[in-house]
């Protein structure tokens, strides 16, 4: 009897989670791929179209434009966040007077949602009266109206993402820094090196696996960027911030072409998966 119960128990314990996982995680993933093969409207599937959704995407100028915008965004955002979070983590690593307040400054955006962050930056970047334009004017420069200029708008979105995500990356990097033995720095100090050399020759090489994680997470984030764009620029000006997720949203919930939208989701997933794979391969060989 006891043996019998022991065999049933694991199923009772894991079953409810596995059921929820199957319905609301595994099934939707499979169904996404399935839907991408249909002409699927708001009331359900109209016709099986095979890979036609993908082909029509690849022939669509708006799709390639969104790929370009997303890639440009990643190219701006990823180096920025890797450098900023590494710098901040190294600066925060050792004790200093007031370090708790400094930590709070970088960590508090972790708990702020993207809508609030977008509101805060909308206000900072407001034309003429916003903080940024006022600072520019203080230095005798013209206000930039960053959000209404195609080149600047994407950069502004990257700054918002940087602000919200850096704290998270700093937490990860600080955990990595704690694992580097202090002896290494002391030995370097005895040899009379400068702090900058410590960073180049000790910190960065030993942090490599963690830096890789930070980079992969940031690229994954960059290719899924949505909330900031949706609230601050709605993809404008002139489509200059219409990232792939924004196109997915428009196809799915404004034009109700659900099959096409699902196909965009699949393409984003393939891009993210390939980039992550390439990075892990590339870096593993170098370590």
């Amino acid at each position, binding site marked *: 009897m006891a043996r019998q119960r022991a065999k049933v128990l694991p199923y009772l*314990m894991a079953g*409810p*989670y596995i059921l*929820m996982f199957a319905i*609301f*995680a*595994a*099934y939707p*993933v499979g169904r*996404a791929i399935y*839907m991408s093969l249909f002409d*699927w409207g708001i009331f*359900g599937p109209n016709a099986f179209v095979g890979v036609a959704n993908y082909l029509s995407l690849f022939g669509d100028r708006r799709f390639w434009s969104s790929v370009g915008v997303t890639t440009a965004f990643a190219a701006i955002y990823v180096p920025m966040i890797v450098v900023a979070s590494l*710098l901040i983590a190294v*600066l925060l690593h050792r004790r*200093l007077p007031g*370090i708790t*307040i*400094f930590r709070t*400054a*970088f*960590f508090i955006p*972790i*708990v*702020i*949602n*993207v*809508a*609030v962050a977008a*509101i*805060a930056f909308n*206000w*900072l970047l*407001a034309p003429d*009266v916003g*903080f940024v334009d*006022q600072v520019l004017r203080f230095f005798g420069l013209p206000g930039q109206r960053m959000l209404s200029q195609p080149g600047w708008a994407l950069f502004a979105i990257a700054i918002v993402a940087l602000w919200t995500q*850096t704290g*998270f990356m700093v*937490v*990860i990097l600080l955990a*990595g820094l704690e694992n580097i033995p202090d002896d290494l720095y002391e030995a370097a100090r005895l040899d009379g090196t400068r702090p900058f050399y410590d960073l180049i020759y000790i910190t960065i090489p030993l942090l490599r696996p963690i830096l890789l*994680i930070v980079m*992969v*997470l940031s690229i994954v984030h960059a*290719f899924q960027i*949505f909330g900031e764009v949706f*609230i601050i620029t709605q993809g404008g000006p002139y489509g200059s911030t219409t990232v792939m*997720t924004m196109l*997915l*949203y428009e196809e*799915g*919930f404004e034009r109700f072409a*659900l099959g096409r*939208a*699902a196909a965009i*989701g699949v393409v*984003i*997933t393939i891009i993210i998966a390939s980039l*992550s794979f390439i990075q892990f391969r590339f870096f593993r060989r170098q370590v």
Partner: protein
Amino acid sequence: MRRAQIIRWFVLLVLALLWFTPLASLVLYSFAPPAEVLKGGFVPTQWTLQNYWTVLTDTTRGVSVPQGLANSTIIMVCQVVGILLLDIPAAYAFARMRFIGRDVIFILVLATMMMPGVLDIISLYDLMANLGLINTLAGVILPGLPRVIGIFILRQFFLEIPREMEEAARMDGATDFQIFTRIMVPLAWPSIMTVAVITALYSWNNFLWPLIVTNSPEAMPVPVVIAYLSADTTAVLNYTVILAAAFVTSLPMILLFMLGQRWIVSGMRPSSGIK
């Protein structure tokens, strides 16, 4: 302090001030009369609580912040409780019990965790429409329940508990279920707190899915309410009200940050989660 330390301190000070600026400016102007927005300057010259009064009483914009706060609270409580109830026993079973398909299922769960959220957003919407859950709190809550991070953190913890502890309890006549409830769960308390806190954060701040599954105030959580407020073009005249709404709806999470910072940090470290 040595020279290097002083330089480090000043660089940190400048960066920290930069990082504080967006929120500081938001909070300052949330206490300013609407006209202050057009004046310029970095700090308002007049102060008022009017914006907060408007946020908490006015529903003329079609969405309501108090309703949003209520919705977000219900969603958060349901997801935290639901995820703990699902994850604690499941993580234990994955870590320390044998059952058919255990490893295959766990690999599937991990693989799904790597999938970007945008992959299944469309099919999830379609599924929810078929279930009649569009515009309901259940529609917001349910897809969050299979989140993998809790399973991952708790399983990691349960794996590290030594076998001897379990065997000693069994010698004393404890059943498997008693071992789980009387010994393992109390031991796992710090990991359970971590999962609870990071789930609360996710739940309150999640934006994309609630935006898609809700389109009327009855089910909208606060980030979606904020997005609707800011999209309302007539609201441009009342930007200070939006700032107040943004701050009010962030307060619960700022409080959580102050009380639970160590749980948040431990939930984000590579050793306990995130790949």
